[in-house]
Structure formats: C-alpha cells, structure tokens
C-alpha cells in the first residue's frame, strides 16, 4: 500500500502527491491504459524499423529508368521521378527522423532539467538568472531562428540538425519543471533533509527528481514530437541533412509530385510523420493522466458497464 497525499499548487492544480515508496499502483495502472499501449505500439514499430529497416532494404538512392511508377509488386510504394524506390527511401528516412527526434528529446530534457530544477531549487539570483535565460529562449521565434542558424551551418548531418533544433526546444519544459520544483522544495521532507545537512545536489537527486519523473517523462515525449516535426519542417524547406521524411517531402514537392499526381511519393512520408506524432501524443496523454488525476476518465467495467 502506498500513502498518497493530494496537494495543490498556487493555481489550485492538483500536484503529484508524495509517494511513500511501498510500491506504485499508479504506474501499474498505466499498463492498462489503452492510449499508452497504442502509443507505445506505434512508436515501437517505427523504432524497430529505424533500427533494423535500413539493414534489410537496398540503397535508397539507386536510380533506374522506371520513373514515376505507381505501387506494384516490384516497387511496394512506387518510384520517384529519378526511378528511386519510395519504399526503400521511406524505411531509411525513418531512421533519420527517429534519430533526430530521440537526440532532441534527450538534449532538450537534460538542459531543461538542469536549468529548471537547479534554478527552482536554488532560488535567489541563480533562479532569476536561469529564469531570464529560459524566458529569452521562450520568446525567440523558434522555427525562423532555427532556419537562420541551419542556413549558416556548413555541413549538416542528423546530429547537427538535432543540436540546432534542441537550441529552442528546452525552454518551455524548463519553466514547467521549475514551477514544480518550487512547489516540491517547500515540502516538509525536503526541509527535513536540508536541516539534516544534506548537500543540495543530493536533495535534488534523491528527494526532488524522483517526484518529477512523470513530468520529465512527459516533457521528454513532448520534445521528441517537437524534434521530429521541426526537423521535418526544416527538411521541407530544403535545409535538411538527416535524410528524413521531411527530405522526402521536399524532393516530392520540388519535383511537382502533387501536380503529377504521384501520391505514392508524398503520402507515405506525410502519413509516417502524422502516425509517429499521434503515437507520441498518446503516450504523452497517458503520462498527463498519471500526473494530473483529474484528467482521468473513469474506465467502464466491461462486464457490468459500471464505472469503476
């Protein structure tokens, strides 16, 4: 059994209670969430394609004289205007897009935890400085800035693009984490730890971070979506470098696939972006429900039809 006290922050929002670690029924409840299972399924599938797919298909850049053919047994998703196989390109592009999303997710999360949690816990000038820092990045127009930087970077691979996208991806999360840290910092058990002379880094690591985990996970998923979408937008402007779904869309648009009616060239990458986005969003919703119980919809018992 776990004891959970419900607390409210300044805005009256319910905040995660303090979990006395004797098991975590809430996490267990997550596994029954259909949203989460669906989301994980979709993202897991694309993750698997990203890892092993490129090893199984041939060279996506191989040209042939079979130009602009529709889907067939020879070319599952047809061919481009240079006779390249769209299915191969889609599989290889999956790796490009997913790698960028993952790296952006990790980088943005690390930075937002550092800036948000440290600032929120330290308070005073440190907090003001770090807040100002994240506020500046928050009001910077994300995409235009990234477009400008990208245009000046000499060579771009997936990692370089991910780094650039991360520049503007962390600020929102940092604010959210800071707010939550502020509320956690004044809890009794944190005070107790402080009085007993524990150093700040220990308190942050062992008392505050565990209670922020669901929130951090949600922000991470959010950053991954942002990374994939921003990279797709950049690539669509011809500023890609990751060989991603956005790059495919860019080539399709430049070769006038829409006017030529070559739907098999631009629908699959577009659909892939939409699906991964949806999958990640589902994961995010279920994490949100974990964090904020009021979002939870009562699940009906299938046999009795009564709300549990």
């Amino acid at each position: 059994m776990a004891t959970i006290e419900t607390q409210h922050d300044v805005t009256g929002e319910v905040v995660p209670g303090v979990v006395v670690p004797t098991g975590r029924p809430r996490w267990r409840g997550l596994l029954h969430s259909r949203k989460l299972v669906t989301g994980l399924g979709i993202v897991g599938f694309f993750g698997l394609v990203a890892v092993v797919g490129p090893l199984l298909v041939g060279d996506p850049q191989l040209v042939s004289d079979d130009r602009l053919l529709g889907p067939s047994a020879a070319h599952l998703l047809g061919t481009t205007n240079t006779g390249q196989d769209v299915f191969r390109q889609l599989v290889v592009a999956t790796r490009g897009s997913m790698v960028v999303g993952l790296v952006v997710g990790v980088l943005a999360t690390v930075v937002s935890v550092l800036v948000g949690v440290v600032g929120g816990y330290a308070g005073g000038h440190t907090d003001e400085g770090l807040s100002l820092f994240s506020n500046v990045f928050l009001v910077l127009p994300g995409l235009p800035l990234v477009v400008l930087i990208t245009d000046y970077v000499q060579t771009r691979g997936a990692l370089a693009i991910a780094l650039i996208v991360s520049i503007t991806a962390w600020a929102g999360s940092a604010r959210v984490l800071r707010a939550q840290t502020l509320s956690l910092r004044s809890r009794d058990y944190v005070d107790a730890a402080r009085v007993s002379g524990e150093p700040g880094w220990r308190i942050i690591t062992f008392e505050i971070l565990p209670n922020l985990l669901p929130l951090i996970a949600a922000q991470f998923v959010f950053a991954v979506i942002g990374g994939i979408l921003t990279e797709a937008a950049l690539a669509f402007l011809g500023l890609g470098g990751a060989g991603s779904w956005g790059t495919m869309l860019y080539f399709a648009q430049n070769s006038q696939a829409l006017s030529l009616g070559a739907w098999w060239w631009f629908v699959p990458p577009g659909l892939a972006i939409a699906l991964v986005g949806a999958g990640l969003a589902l994961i995010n919703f279920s994490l949100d429900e974990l964090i904020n119980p009021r979002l939870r919809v009562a699940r009906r018992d299938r046999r009795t039809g009564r709300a549990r």
Partner: protein
Amino acid sequence: MRSPLARRLLAALATATLVVGGAAGCGDDGDADGSGTAEGKIINVFSGANAGFVPNFNPFSQNSVAGTHSVLYEALLYFNGARADDVQPQLATGYEFADNGRTLNLTVRDGVKWSDGTPFTAEDVAFTFNLIRDHQKINHNGLPIVEAVAADPTHVSIKFSQGVYTRLNLIAGRIYIVPKHLWSAIADPSAFTNEKPVATGAFTVASFSQQNYVFERNPNYWEAGKPKIKGLRFHQFASADSAIAALGAGQLDWAGSFIADIDKQYVSRDPEHNKYLNESQLYLTNLIPNLDKAPFNSVAVRKAVSLALDRDQIIKLAFSGYGKHASPAQLPRPLWDDYIKPEYKDRKLEFDPARAEQTLQQDGWTKGADGIYAKAGRRLSFTVKVVQGYNDYISALQIMTQALKSVGIEMKTQEVSFTAFSTDQQTGDFDMIITNLYSEGTAYSWYSRGFASKTTAPLGQQAGSNYGRYRNPSVDAALLVMENTPPDQKDALRAELFKIQDVLVEELPYIPIQQSSSLIEYRTENISNFPTEQNHYALTTPYNGPDMGIVAKNLLPAG
C-alpha cells in the same frame, strides 16, 4: 539568381496556400468591350515572382521588378541573347570605336521623348555613364569609364581607361539610360527605388500593388507602330504548383516556370494554344574540379570521370529530359555555333566506362581490394560540394556516384548552405563543385570568366569567376588578342576562339554535364508573333534583361 533560401522558404510556406493563393486576380482585366482581342486586352505574365511585389523601378538596382529593364528603360543597342551577332539599334542608331577601343562614339536617336514629354538627347546618355562612374556601387560590371561627353544632341563620346572591344555588349546593351533632368537630383542612385519611373520604353507603369503590377502601351513610343498589345500584367504565384495550375487554366499568356512533364501537365490541356520554348543557351552545368589539388590536377583523372558519365541518363532522370548535351568547346549551342570549331560542333562528350578504367590504369592507378583505384597509397576518392536543396543537382550527383563507383572511383556528396558554397567556391575550398557557368553575352566572356588566369586567385584567396583555378598561357594569350580586336573582325576573333577550344578539348579542365534549360510557356490564344526556334528574334525569358522588352513590343494581338 534569387536567394535560394528565401525562394525555398516562400515556396514551402506557400504550399499551404496552394489552392487559395492560386490565380486570384487573373483573367478579368476590366475588358470593357469584351472583344477579347489583345488590342483591348492586357496580357498576363509570370516571371517567377513568389512573394509580394515591392515597388522598385531603379534600373541600377539588383532588386528592381521584372520589366524595369527594357520594358521601361532602354539601352543603346540590343544584342539578341538567342542569336549571336544579331545587334539592333535602340536608343543609339550607330557606333564606332576609336583610339584602339578606348573611345566609343555613338549616334543617338533623334525624336525620342521621355514618358513625361521631355525630349531625350545625348546629354541623358552622357549623364548616365558619368553617374555610373561617380557611383561605383552601381557599376556592376566594373566598366573603366573615364568620361562621357555629349558633343551635340545626337552625338556622345564615351572615354575608357582601357580598350573595351570585348565589352560593347555590357556598355551599349546592358546600361539603361535614365533621364538627366530627374536623376541629377538623386543623391544615391543605388538606394533609390524610383517608384514613379520616367523612361523611354514602349510601356509605362499603369498600376502597382503587392499582388500585381501593370504596364500599359506608351502612345508616344519612338518606334512607329509599336507596341501593338495594350499592356502587360505581372503576376506572382506562391508556389510552382499554383503557377502550373494557372497556366493550365489558360490564365497566363507568358510565363517562365519549370514544369515537370510539360506535355502532360500543360500542353495537353489545350494543344492548340499551349506552346513552349526550351531556352537552353544561358547556362552550362559543369562539374568544376579544383585543379590546384590532387587528384584533379591530373588530366587522366578528369577524363576518366567524364568517360564514366552517361549524360543521356543524367539529363533524362535528374533534369527531367529538358537539358541538352554540352559541347566540349564550352560554348552554348546553337547560339555560338558560328564561333565553334567545326569538328567540335556536334561532338558529344563520350560515355565509355571501359575506357575510363583504361585511362586510369595507363596513368598508373591500380584497383584496390575495395574496388576503388589507388595510386601511391592514395585512393581515388573525392567530395563534391553542392548547394543544399538544389534537388536536380543532388539527383544528378546520386546518379553520377553510382556510375563512378562502377569504374572504381569514389564520389561523395556534401550538401552545404548557399552562403558557405559561395565562399568555398571563391576561396577554392573544395575537391569539386557542381554549378552553372554563364557569360555576359559574348563568346569572349564565356572563356574569360571561366578559364582566364586573371579571373582566378591562389587557393585561399577569392577568385572572381574562375573557381576551378584553371591557368593556361595559350588561353590567356588568345584572350589578350581578342581584347585588342575590334568586334567586327569576326575571322580574327574566331581564330583565337578555336585556339582556346583546342586547349579545352585537350585538357578538359572542367567536366561539362549539360546545357541547362529554362522552360518558357506562352499561349497563342491572345498573342501572336512570339519568338520561335525558327524566328528567335529575342530570348524569351520573362525575367529581367534586355530581351524581355523586345518581345513585349513585338507581340501582336492574336487573329
């Protein structure tokens, strides 16, 4: 060239407005009598604009709107961009060189009026050239002007600090004459936007908005009986797709838009009226190797690369089949046919993978275990830089990579931003680049820009236009002779050009890929007398340049 970033940005943002942004404002021009003849109709033109029009009719500005040159402001002579040696009098009726090409004496046309009614005289010509001398910012071609003096209302003499035989086209063909009585008050002619232009051209500005602008017939135009059409309306389209939709719907009479599979997407919509021209005399797409570094300082390697490339396939797949084979003489055809040595005229660059390998083996290269040739411990591997997002080039490089791999040469592609590419090509920071060569409209200029020692620089320093770092004493000598030969001595010029061509064919400094094409669409429903392959009285690209106004004033109403 427009900034590719801006172009791509707008193009991308515009796909959202694909359907909405289409052809608003096309079609109906308040055609009062409803006759539908071009006499009472303003023809609709698309010059490739994809963003809101900003009023700028300054002929010295790089940002002036299409039509400023030659539709509004006129030059002294017209050098046909589609036919060599086709020179027509415009504001000048005659010219002669003196003082070994250091003085140009021009006879100025009598009876021309500015659109505000003021007479045009030789004073305006002299003023324009002195203005350029005094404001080097607008001296885009670096003309060495000393002084221009008007002897009387119809004679002007321009003095230069060096011979300008080879630059007649730039002086008389591409300097647009402005009115002294208005421009003498302008402090900085490079920043002036000239929103109420007063010019001599066949059309004047009737209206201007962000969405479109209209030129209407100038009733006092100097050339009798021209122009015949009522006017031109310039449109913009946010994306290529919306421009194609407007063309297909018959809403444009003249456009310069790339259309993939043009027969299907455009001609078949109205085979009777929908016509197009493939203008492929402006650019030569080349692989330009860095000749100051290994491996391309070896002629064998350059020839092997060239032999491994199947240009038919590259043109068909990467350039939608519109490009044409480039002559090894590095001059666009048929425009310069008169100046290409007969034996090179129809010569194609060979495709022979087996010979490519033999060439390498004879040069001492041996195939390694990885299937790539090597010599003295160095693998035959190099990187081509290409501007990020130039997808036709990128496709072409993908095809070449495969072809070269099959003959044991490893080519890698590196996409770099436009800014970085410009810097790298100037300083020579590359193994190879893929780019277009172009000229200032003369055969001399093709070779001088691409292959003269004086237009290059050592590695690390900025080269003007010879990015490949090619240096050859016999090419330089031939160019020097041409600089001192009056333009009417064609045989003497030809002899020098043939010498240069012999060297280029022998050494293959750059590797030509194709004559790059520009597609020009026109509809014969409202207009006739549009230039054709047979009657190419002007280049038909509806962008800036001296040719556009010539087409506009020679168009006739259909029927």
